[in-house]
């Protein structure tokens, strides 16, 4: 009986695995149908949010399941050519292990976000529900298509759909001018990036005018053209991922968007950029140079430190998380850089270790960053406040959100036994081998990168203590906060799903490592050694380093339980509720706690060179003293404003051509025609 059931299941798995791609495409199409279905009752939040979004979440689960099955069993790339798009340019679609891994990520995190979103959207907020549903599901579908695309044409179509649908989602509260501005900045950066990617594909076709990825894989490039393609990809995907100095849109757009959208952008969309970077540099390009690795390493580490430092001084909870995304993307790029460095030095095992760290961190970041962005959504709905200076003490009014946010906080701070620690541990392990690199100076300098990494990770713990402490702990900083209500059951369900993922991967990292193994095997020809047991990992050798999240978690919990019982049995459990002691000081108000500014003060003090600061300090004789501090990114004034001015001047210059007289325009047409004739002849 059991045997036949087993047989039946494996048979089903086989059928599914062979036709994985077809089923996934069906699910993607179903997402788009869900988007349109909203127009049946365009103004009903009940219909669109409470019915269509949970259906979308189920589709996410389906995608995750199929991708997981593919990674577990098939792994033979599957191809489909759809006769859509322009004539002679059909859509090439391919599912291989790299896209399988990122689809798994998209499905797992997307399921949680969609479930939360089902409970999140309220009537009368911004864009009409049907439109929102359309944009949201197209966003999901386009991300899946970016990951599945196997030719440059489809890739760009999906990439642009993704950019546009997310732009409309960001600006769903478009009546607020600030949000319109943030959306505009995002749109500009997205298109600058898209142009770079387009040019990159232009280089990659190598004169063959074949835009399928298959043709690009077989093309051979001179070092110069390969490097050009790599740099263009870095610019394009770096702009999407939020790598410094292309990060400026991120802290503007993420706070502007509704929370589920912020979660999707930060948790999932940034990962499509990581995917693109990996696809171009490890799959499409057949050669790599160690200098690329150094470049990625330096940019990644700098972004990570930059993001962490800026996150520490933020006073808006969603901006803080946005900067923390920059930090995490930096860590992922650091891993990719190390992988390139090791791979070009023929140290494939260590390259696999570094790439594993990057991929696992991508997965983890999708889980915990989505979780935290979603909790800010609940806080926002409950309190109408985004500013950290007006929150506090919510753990007493929102116990569900607070306890789930605590899991996210501990994960993102990189603390064992949760999942953030696993990837950071893997990354540190791969840094340990940098002294073996065959480059005389690099092998001495790069170990310092490990120190920068450790500083960043420890700083992110600081940031997250600030985030959690100021929002959920302490005294409420506004009297209205006592009316805060907890999240509704759909929101809770979404949060629980993501938090459970954080705990599960922290305890059993093998779950993700086994999904990553085929990817590193395919891209680098080696995989990290999985330990013999399922509950521990030892990426290189048992003697060298090992870690077991499950035993750590179980150990801590059992010691806690035993201690608790012992204390109760041997001593007592009496408790007396009293006033706060605070060294006997009787008059306490909530304003005596650290504000968000106050908590960030040591960082501002130490990393002062990172910021451009304006401070208004009250003088001693002020009757209404006000303390105000304004912190800005130096890159704004150093890079972006000059570029903006340059573009403005250029546009003014070109505007001279626009005389407004028909005869002049006819003259232009005539001259152009003449020029073209000369060119042709």
């Amino acid at each position: 009986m059991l045997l036949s059931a087993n047989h039946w299941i494996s048979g089903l798995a086989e059928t599914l695995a062979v036709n994985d791609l077809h089923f996934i495409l069906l699910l993607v199409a179903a997402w788009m149908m869900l988007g349109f279905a909203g127009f049946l009752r365009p103004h009903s939040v009940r219909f669109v949010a409470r019915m269509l979004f949970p259906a979308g979440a189920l589709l996410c689960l389906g995608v995750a399941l199929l991708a997981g099955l593919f990674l577990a069993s098939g792994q033979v790339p599957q191809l489909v050519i759809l006769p859509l798009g322009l004539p002679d340019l059909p859509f090439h679609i391919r599912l291989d292990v790299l896209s399988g891994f990122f689809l798994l990520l998209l499905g797992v995190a997307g399921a949680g976000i969609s479930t939360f979103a089902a409970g999140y959207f309220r009537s009368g907020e911004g864009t009409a529900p049907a439109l929102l549903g359309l944009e949201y599901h197209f966003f999901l579908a386009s991300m899946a298509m970016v990951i599945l695309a196997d030719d440059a044409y489809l890739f760009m179509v999906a990439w642009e759909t993704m950019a546009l649908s997310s732009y409309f989602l960001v600006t769903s509260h478009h009546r607020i001018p600030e949000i319109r501005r943030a959306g505009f900045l995002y749109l500009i950066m997205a298109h600058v990036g898209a142009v770079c990617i387009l040019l990159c594909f232009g280089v990659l076709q190598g004169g063959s005018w074949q835009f399928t990825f298959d043709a690009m894989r077989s093309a051979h490039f001179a070092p110069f053209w390969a490097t050009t393609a790599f740099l263009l990809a870095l610019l394009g995907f770096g702009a999407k991922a939020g790598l410094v100095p292309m990060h400026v849109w991120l802290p503007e757009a993420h706070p502007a968007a509704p929370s589920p959208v912020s979660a999707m952008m930060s948790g999932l969309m940034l990962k499509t950029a990581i995917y693109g970077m990996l696809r171009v540099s490890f799959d499409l390009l057949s050669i790599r140079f160690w200098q690329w690795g150094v470049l990625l390493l330096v940019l990644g580490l700098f972004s990570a430190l930059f993001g962490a430092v800026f996150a520490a001084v933020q006073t808006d909870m969603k901006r803080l998380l946005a900067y923390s995304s920059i930090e995490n993307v930096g860590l992922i790029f650091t891993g990719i850089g190390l992988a390139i460095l090791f791979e070009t030095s023929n140290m494939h095992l260590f390259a696999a270790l570094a790439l594993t760290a990057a991929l696992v961190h991508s997965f983890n970041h999708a889980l915990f960053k989505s979780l935290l962005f979603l909790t800010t959504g609940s806080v926002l709905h409950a309190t109408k406040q985004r500013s950290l200076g007006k929150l506090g003490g919510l753990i007493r009014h929102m116990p569900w959100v607070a306890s789930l946010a605590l899991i996210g906080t501990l994960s993102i701070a990189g603390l064992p036994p949760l999942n953030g620690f696993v990837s950071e541990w893997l990354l540190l392990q791969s840094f340990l081998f940098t002294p073996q690199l065959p480059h005389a100076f690099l092998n001495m300098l790069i170990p310092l990168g490990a120190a920068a990494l450790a500083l960043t990770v420890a700083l992110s713990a600081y940031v997250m203590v600030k985030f959690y402490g100021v929002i959920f702990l302490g005294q409420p900083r506004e009297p209205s906060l006592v009316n805060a209500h907890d999240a509704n059951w759909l929101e809770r369900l979404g949060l629980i799903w993501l938090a459970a993922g954080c705990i599960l991967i922290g305890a059993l990292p093998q779950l993700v490592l086994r999904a990553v193994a085929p990817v590193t095997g395919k891209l680098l020809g080696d995989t990290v050694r999985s330990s013999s047991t399922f509950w521990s990992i030892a990426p290189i050798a048992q003697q060298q380093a090992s870690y077991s999240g499950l035993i750590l978690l179980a150990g801590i919990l059992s010691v806690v339980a035993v201690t608790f019982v012992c204390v109760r049995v041997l001593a007592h459990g009496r408790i007396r509720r009293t006033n706060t002691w605070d060294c006997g000081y009787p008059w306490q108000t909530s304003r005596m706690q650290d504000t968000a500014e106050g908590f960030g003060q040591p960082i501002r003090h130490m990393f002062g060179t990172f910021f451009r600061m304006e401070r208004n300090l009250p003088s001693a004789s002020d009757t209404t003293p006000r303390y105000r501090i304004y912190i800005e990114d130096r890159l704004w004034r150093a890079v972006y404003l000059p570029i903006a001015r340059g573009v403005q001047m250029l546009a003014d210059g070109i505007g001279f051509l626009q005389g407004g007289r028909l005869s002049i325009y006819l003259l232009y047409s005539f001259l152009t025609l003449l020029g073209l004739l000369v060119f042709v002849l």
Partner: protein
Amino acid sequence: MSAISFFRQFVEVVLAIAIAPLLAGWIAQCRAWLQNRSAPPLLLPYRMLRKLFFKDVALATDASVLFRATPYVLFGTMVLAAAIIPSLVTDLPLARVADSIALVGLFATARVFLSLAAMDIGTAFGTLGARREMMVGFLAEPALLMVLFNAFLLYGSTSLPSLVDGYRTHPSVIDPSVIFAALAFVMVALAENARIPIDNPSTHLELTMIHEAMLLEYSARHLALVEWATSLKLFNYACIGFALFMPWGIATHGSDGAGALLIAIAALIGKLVIAGAALALIESLSAKLRIFRAPEYLAMAFLLAVLGLLVHLLVGA
């Protein structure tokens, strides 16, 4: 994994829990002698713990579950760390659960929990302590990591039992980098354990305290657990230092008998006596730094560790 190795694991954990307060008492005694005060009894910490366990908890009305759970979590992480660190024997069932980097992470978990608990009630001193503790923590971690990096370069492992075994099989390795790393480790250990020159464990002057400021609202059994965990943390740091720099007497893979275990216990107690006295001496000789000098101090620890690294790569290679 024989029954005997589980027995030794049990002995190690129980010994750690039992003698950690004794180490605190010994340091306090040495400090008193060095500063010409009459010394408190050696067993005072135990009496304090006993007293605290039997008092009623006075809990602030606003305290949340997090505040009440944190003492247990702290104690749990520290006991688990004591089980993982090879203070007596290297062949432990739990030794492979976490390498030294994961141990640093475990300590960070404890630190974050304590900081969050300090912010829970929302007093000025609590948040001040939490902020300073996290600041010292994030500066100390890179330096500690560089020390572990040094050890990795010498013996090719971040796992403490492997390091001890490596040292015992190649005891002839005397590398100049070890001296730098050891200095850096001592500096980091002082900072992480809230000792002078970063913090003063016996101060209750509100404006200068770090660690104590976070404990102000704790009372009775909660306070007892936190204090016990704090002394366990010091014990754990000492044992990490022993494993890295003076692993003499620790029973390695080959030596299984009861004799080796007894020698290991004697060696551990001997090393703790010396280390405790040395700590008291350092604390008596140095003054507490201003809080904004802490970054300089920890940067120096970091640079020492980096120097060790460079010395090894230049000389040793």
